């Protein structure tokens, strides 16, 4: 099948209520309706989900790997942003 007629789509699955849709992979399909059906057939065969999103891959603006330094490295030295400096009473249990 001609790939020009079957653009790429990104598939997101919500595995259960209360969780977010998580990226599962991608696929080719002629349009959004067929992409949704193909996503159902390719990615939810083993009861992986209760809700699907499909998004045209070319609608996603991705960060450039070249920018990784300025985007992400500065956070490595900012441990104080993690909420690990509090004493949590035992009664609270797992947070």
């Amino acid at each position: 099948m001609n790939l020009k007629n079957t653009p790429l789509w990104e598939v997101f699955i919500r595995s259960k209520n209360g969780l977010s849709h998580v990226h599962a992979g991608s696929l080719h399909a002629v349009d959004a309706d067929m992409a949704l059906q193909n996503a159902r057939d390719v990615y939810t065969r083993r009861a992986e989900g209760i809700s699907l999103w499909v998004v045209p891959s070319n609608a996603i603006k991705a960060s450039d790997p070249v920018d990784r330094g300025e985007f992400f490295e500065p956070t490595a030295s900012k441990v104080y942003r993690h909420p690990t400096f509090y004493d949590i009473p035992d009664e609270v249990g797992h947070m």
Partner: protein
Amino acid sequence: MAADSALFSYSLRLADNANVLGHRMCEWSGKAPMLEEDMALSNLGLDLIGQARSLYSYAGEVEGAGRSEDDLAFMRDANSYSNVLLVEMPNGDFAVTMLRHFFFAAYYAPFFEELCKSKDETLAAVAAKAVREMAYHLRHSAEWVIRLGDGSDESAKRMQDAVNILWPYTGELFESDAIDQQLLAEGIAVDPESLREKWQATVADVFKRALLTAPEDAWMQSGGRTGEHTEHLGFMLAEMQFLQRSYPGAQW
């Protein structure tokens, strides 16, 4: 006819339809036009084989002669198979496969809705599971019929060719005989004739969107339900049954 005998034949016909079409769809494994559709076709096929297994097991139980689902699927020849001719038609191109599935699902989606009300608890339970599967089969096949019919010149031509090839095999879906009538009177079976209007409306709606023309109703092929098959079924069964015939009872 004894009640059990009619129920056996009725369950067997349903099982044969599901089994033969399920096998046809699985013949696409690894050969579909694209990976996504390869998965989709196998999924559709496996839904049908799942239905066939339940129905064969039940038929064997009703018959009471100790035949298992495998015996019924693999140890009967073509002239004992009672599926409609539509489902044994060769896969042809993707247009033929999708249209064949659409014609089948447009009948069996409403069929199983009705069969859910059957007084036979097992058939009603099988129907309750199948009804959702068939609703998806109808959706998926209809979307492809629309996209190919209203697609390129080539896809439109192939889809219209498929219509012309398969149309004469649609009449058999609505046939009924003494077995159907007896079980209908007992509240077990579905009246095929009662589904005709719905089927026609579904097909008309999809054909309109697909820019396809239905041929005038003329001669309709018939005979599958009583074991008179096209030459295609024998070849299909030869491949499907080879293992169990050569190595009876083989398991893995």
